[in-house]
């Protein structure tokens, strides 16, 4: 077989990290993992043996907050002292450049920790004049550079040399402008909102889109919470569950009918058939704090006795985001997946699976 054909048949390098824990354990890191993954574009909840929206989810789904889309925002406005004081220092501010490709164009992202990440190509880096480091996923001749600017640094005050240089580079030397997705979360005290701050730019407030659907006669694998690897006749392993979940969320037929040429995938054994399963999908720029609230409500779901043995919460990150978890670099090779999946059992044990693509660092 020739080399190109062989390469087509090989799956690109991907990484799946599986973790097990208990939601009410004091050292459980489920909230920390959710908080570290800053940019989420889709959340799906699958609850077997459930036909309608459960009571516990109603409030969580209604209170998802809103996010903003700003067109033509220059990056130097995010570095301006006013913005840093009003939004970055008070609460968590999330910003991500929209409609840019991580492997071709320049991208910018603002993390809630106050770090501004610019992922630029070689020519822009040489013209911009800000110190950065080459990306870990370029070859011998780096084509991509990552510049990290800490906006909450004590040496980053308006009279400092650093601030002046950054402002000069982003304003006069090489102005960078993107469409941004913005979100701000502050617990407690109200400040000015993003809407009023960016009223001069074309800012638009949007709410995340929520859809519900009920799946009938679904084959679900049998899982045991303390068996990550799965026992041969008794339960399925995490990888099998992950694949099955992907098939279900993409509406792939699990019958393996001989007339269908699209997929020969079957539900892993052992499995049971459930009458109905509830699928809720939320699309938009969703911040981790809301996901933590959703997770808490899902744990409360098992407060009353239910037929379901487990339920899943899947969160997808943006394919073009420059970071995956914390400040780990994220790249796009043949796919830009960076997603994680919680499986919560009746006894509040959980499985956490984190999946990444080729040009990615291992998640924490």
């Amino acid at each position: 077989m020739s080399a190109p054909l062989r390469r087509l048949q090989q799956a690109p390098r991907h990484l799946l990290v599986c973790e097990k824990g208990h939601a009410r354990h004091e050292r459980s890191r489920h909230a920390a993992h959710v908080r570290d993954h800053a940019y989420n574009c889709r959340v799906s909840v699958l609850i077997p043996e459930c036909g309608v929206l459960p009571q516990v989810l109603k409030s969580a789904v209604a209170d998802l907050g809103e996010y903003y889309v700003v067109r033509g925002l220059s990056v130097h406005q995010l570095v301006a002292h006013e913005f840093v004081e009003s939004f970055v220092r008070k609460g968590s501010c999330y910003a991500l450049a929209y409609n840019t490709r991580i492997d071709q164009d320049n991208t910018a992202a603002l993390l809630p920790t106050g770090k501004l990440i610019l992922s630029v190509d070689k020519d822009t880096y040489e013209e911009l004049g800000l110190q950065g480091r080459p990306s870990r996923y370029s070859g011998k001749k780096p084509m991509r550079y990552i510049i990290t600017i800490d906006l909450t640094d004590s040496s980053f005050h308006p009279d400092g040399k650093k601030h002046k240089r950054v402002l000069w580079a982003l304003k006069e030397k090489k102005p960078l402008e993107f469409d941004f997705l913005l979100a701000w979360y502050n617990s407690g005290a109200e400040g000015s909102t993003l809407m009023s701050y960016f009223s001069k730019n074309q800012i638009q407030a949007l709410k995340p889109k929520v859809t519900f659907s009920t799946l009938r006669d679904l084959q679900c694998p049998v899982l045991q919470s303390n068996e990550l690897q799965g026992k041969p006749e008794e339960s399925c392993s995490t990888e099998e569950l992950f694949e099955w979940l992907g098939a279900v969320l993409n509406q792939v037929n699990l019958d393996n009918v001989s007339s269908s040429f699209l997929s020969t995938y079957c539900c892993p054994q052992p499995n049971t058939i459930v009458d109905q399963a509830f699928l809720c999908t939320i699309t938009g720029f969703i911040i981790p704090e809301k996901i933590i609230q959703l997770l808490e409500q899902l744990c409360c779901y098992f407060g009353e006795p239910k037929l379901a043995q487990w339920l899943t919460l899947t969160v997808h990150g943006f394919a073009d985001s420059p970071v995956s978890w914390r400040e780990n670099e994220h790249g796009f090779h043949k796919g830009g997946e960076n997603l994680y999946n919680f499986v919560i059992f009746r006894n509040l044990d959980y499985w956490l699976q984190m999946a990444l693509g080729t040009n990615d660092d291992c998640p924490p």
Partner: protein
Amino acid sequence: MEGVLYDGLPREAAKELRLQPQGSEEARAFVSAFLKRSMPKKKDEAIRDALTRKAVVLEHRCARRKKPKRRKTKTFTARQRRELRLFEIEPEQQRYELFLPLHELWKQYIRDLCYGLKPDAQPQMVQSKLLKADLHGAVVTVTKSKCPSYVGITGIILQEFKHVFKIITKDNKLKVVPKINNVFRLETDGFISYIYGSKFQLRASERSAKKFKLKGTIDL
């Protein structure tokens, strides 16, 4: 010479070695008798020849005449030139205002070079003149650089060496900027030129005589 060969052994050495020293006459007689016995076929003259000292020439080298070293004038070596510090500018004299007249002179020089620098002059002509022109006194900005800290340095070129520019900035700082991997922006009366430093690694005096060829890439 023969006296040294047949000299008597000093008395102390003889006593140590427990030898009975012979007189010189006896020693000579002994040596000739010994040689005659060991080389029976050789004649007496041959034996006497062998005894005479002959110098053995180990290396044959003819003395080379040193060529007279031609020194036209008394020149200094590079080290002496550096020690003289003719080209150093003292800190007191590192002031931007002092060099503004130099910049005016340079602008005038370029205008004369390009026959006026009218707005409709051809850029190619201006560029070819600039290639051979002297750049001392030009106001230059670093636009692109492989090292981001060099980007943005603006000032008047004070000295041009083979690999670096010495530029004085408005803050009266003397900056040494390497030419390699840097792109400089030069502005003259509305004509903006970009100098790719990697191709410009020549002394100013040599550049006026060099023909520039398109070789390699201008990518940094």
